[in-house]
């Protein structure tokens, strides 16, 4: 594969490109879906293709093709060069890339048991045991149970005109359960996901009490929870949703392509105090085994630990080769592409708030009436305005300094800068337990997120009834 990509790179340079990046992606994925006790759906997906990106006379061109043949690769190179030429007149400033030292390396993520070597019957057997444990915990209230197991092997090969030639192999395994419980007209859902860069040992070591039994208990528990309150409240985030807040409220705005495009509220604020000194936020691509980690980004720059907010001040952004050159920063390995069909885009990896010193009890005690959120489900942000939304799996009311009745169906919203400034307590605990897929520019990338308990002095809670 490397030989093919080097030929494409050399040909691109010969044809006048000032920068060439040739990339191939090979992926083999297996999934098993067990629904209501039956593992009756088995899926396999394989991907193989080549992408070529060129910088020609200050214009970008990118093209991709299925497979890994020289003829089709050269046709893709032609298309990339033609695309760059065709848009020269419509570009107002030349695209640039920062130079990074050439790296020649081959890396592979660690695992104990290669999932590809495990018979499907063994995978189904373990899933069935996990499902039965959850079913037993469901008190007869579970009306739908879906367990999904997935393993994937990915080899990304990147060659560029700096002389870099990188082969990165990743083995990822995941298990997800989604249980629906019902009582009369009330129907509630709970979701638990385990995913990391490891092998089949993830499934072998899964403890039902932390997976299917947990989902069953949560789903059944939510049936008697009350609807969420509507209004403005102090909000405490459990570590299982702090990652979502971090990812949506700040993370996307710290992707430097948004800053360069004028669509981030962090533009022009480097070094400014945006939050109290309690707050430090990190994006770290080097966390061992984490779902969002990687050795090199898709541009061939090593993955790194990046401090975004340090003691309340904006300390750094996530950069690709281009955004680094445009802003005078050093590239820090954030240019990631989902597949060979995609050009690299600035992305997060594992994003988290660093632990502080507060205990949950101390956070609670000052709150007369508030909301405690648990379990991040989904979120999104409009970066240009810094306006974000986070949906929780559930939570509790806080009354007179203590956790009171459970609540369900709750989202919160805020403005990034205001919310950062309103974080007034950071817990001493820590979890990095939100392995998921982040969407941007039509690409979906594995990321993780987490942090400790945090307290926000005031947020809007979109509930269905009065407090």
């Amino acid at each position, binding site marked *: 594969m490397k030989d093919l990509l080097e030929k494409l790179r050399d040909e691109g340079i010969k044809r006048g490109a000032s920068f060439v990046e040739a990339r191939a992606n090979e992926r083999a994925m297996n999934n098993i879906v067990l629904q209501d006790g039956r593992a009756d759906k088995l899926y396999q997906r394989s991907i193989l293709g080549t992408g070529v990106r060129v910088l020609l006379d200050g214009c970008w061109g990118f*093209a991709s093709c299925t497979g890994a043949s020289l003829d089709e690769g050269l046709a893709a190179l032609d298309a990339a060069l033609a695309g760059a030429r065709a848009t020269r007149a419509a570009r107002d400033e030349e695209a640039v890339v920062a130079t990074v030292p050439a790296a020649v390396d081959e890396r592979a993520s660690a695992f104990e048991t290669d999932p590809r070597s495990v018979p499907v019957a063994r995978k189904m057997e373990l899933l069935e045991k996990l499902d039965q444990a959850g079913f037993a915990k469901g008190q007869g209230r579970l009306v739908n149970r879906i367990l999904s197991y997935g393993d994937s092997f990915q080899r990304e090969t990147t060659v560029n005109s700096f002389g870099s030639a990188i082969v990165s192999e990743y083995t990822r395994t995941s298990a997800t359960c989604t249980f*629906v419980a019902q009582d009369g007209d009330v129907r509630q859902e709970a979701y638990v996901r385990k995913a990391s860069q490891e092998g089949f040992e993830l499934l072998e070591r899964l403890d039902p009490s932390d997976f299917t039994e947990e989902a069953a208990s949560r789903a059944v528990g939510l049936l008697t929870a009350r609807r969420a309150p509507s209004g403005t409240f102090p909000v405490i985030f459990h570590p299982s949703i702090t990652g979502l807040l971090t990812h949506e409220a700040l993370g996307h705005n710290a992707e430097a392509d948004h800053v360069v495009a004028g669509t981030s509220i962090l533009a022009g604020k480097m070094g400014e105090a945006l939050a109290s000194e309690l707050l430090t936020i990190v994006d770290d691509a080097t966390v061992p085994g984490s779902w969002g980690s990687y050795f090199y980004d898709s541009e061939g720059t090593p993955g790194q630990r990046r401090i975004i907010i340090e003691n309340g001040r904006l300390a750094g952004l996530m950069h690709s080769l281009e955004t680094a050159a445009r802003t005078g920063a050093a590239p820090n390995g954030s240019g990631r592409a989902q597949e060979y069909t995609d050009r690299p885009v600035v992305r997060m990896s594992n994003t988290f708030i660093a632990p502080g010193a507060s205990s949950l009890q101390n956070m609670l005690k000052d709150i007369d009436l508030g909301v405690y959120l648990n379990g991040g489900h989904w979120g999104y942000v409009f970066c240009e305005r810094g306006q974000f939304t986070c949906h929780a799996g559930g939570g509790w009311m806080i009354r007179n300094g203590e956790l009171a009745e459970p609540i369900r169906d709750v989202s919160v919203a805020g403005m990034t800068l205001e919310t950062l400034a309103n974080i007034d307590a950071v817990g001493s605990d820590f979890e990095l337990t939100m392995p998921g897929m982040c969407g941007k520019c039509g690409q979906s990338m594995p990321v993780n997120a987490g942090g400790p308990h945090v307290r926000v002095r005031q947020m809007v809670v*979109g509930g269905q009834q009065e407090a």
Partner: protein
Amino acid sequence: MTAEKMLAAAQAACEAAVGAGADMAEVRAAEGRGTSVRVERSAVDATESRSTRGASIRAFSRGGLGSVSLDGLDVDTLVAAAKQAAEMARSAASDRDFKTLPGPSPCPEVAGLYDPRIENVGVDALAGIIMESVQAAKNVAPDALCTGSADAYCGVSALANSLGVALTARSSHISAWVQPVIRRGDDVGSFYEWDAACRMADFDHRQMGATAAETAVCLLGSGKIESGVLSIVLGPLAANSVFHALAASAEAESHQRGRSWLQGRLGTKIASDVVTIHDDPSIPAGLGSRPYDSEGVPGRRMAIIENGVLVNLLHNSYTANKAGVPYTGHARGGGIGPANVVPALGTIPARDIIAQVDRGLYINMGSLSPDGTTGEVSASVDFGFLIENGEITRGVQSTMIGMNGFEMLANIDAVSSDARVEPGMLMPSIRIQDVRVAGGSA
């Protein structure tokens, strides 16, 4: 590869799967080429060209499914993948609810889904389209920084199954979107507009940039409001997302599995009388139109909600056979989904619907749909305005709504008589009474 060769390869793969022990098999194959031009800071930033070909194979054994998807279309590779799918199906647990894949049916052509002119839209033409949109936005707001893209795609596909389904289709698609961001000090206004079509004659990007910029300007100065119970008017884009979510909630699998908030409501009143929704896959040149679904079943215009009553569910062959009802032609990529969701129009123009509101919200775009399982709404007002004394006055921020889905549907008291029209899409405005609104103002 020609459509005929692609179909022959798909049929060979079906035979191989059955030869390898599958009870039945289905192969979908597709090849396509797409081109994109992306704009950033109001200038062209990057171009992309994609050439793709691949196939998806489903084999069944005692109802158990083995599914293999792969890049590439050569016959040997497809045959090997089909055998693998058959082996996987035999390993899967059985599913007694699976009866059969569909057999062949006549599939009337739907006009306008392929336009050869889109094949010839090159990078330079796409750059022209998106830069015209950017200029239109800047004519409204010279300080707007625009992000956006223009995209074109053409493809050919083949579908075969072991019961004799053998179909081919060509498709084309062109689209563009632009998002002007206007920053004046700490104040930011932004909005997003788009246009899309299956044929060039239906594609009109000229107003897109100006409309987006005008709305972005209006959103400057957005502020917080007090919490309360208000009327809300959903503009065409926001209402469309609610109608689409309702249609999606009528997919039969989630009902049969007991995870849908509408489960058990078929034949009952779930919304006010003014709500009627059809799904119609046969609209010429419709963005969601198709001569047949992903299993080869032709579709037809079908009511989903009629005067507030849930009258039909959307089925693929699995759910239809399980329920013992006729196929509806809503299989979509292994799941179920609507084609073109068409709400019935009301009797009052949108401006009059707004004019009747003393104090409320106008929501231009956003997802305010009930959760597919719980039926509850807890959502942000992302692009919203305050209505005071019948007029839209100013943008709002840090505002959310919360409501039970059935209350929301029962409280829809008006659907507008006018609508935004896109190919296959009719997007009226709607009004919902007594919505709980959480504002960020104390």
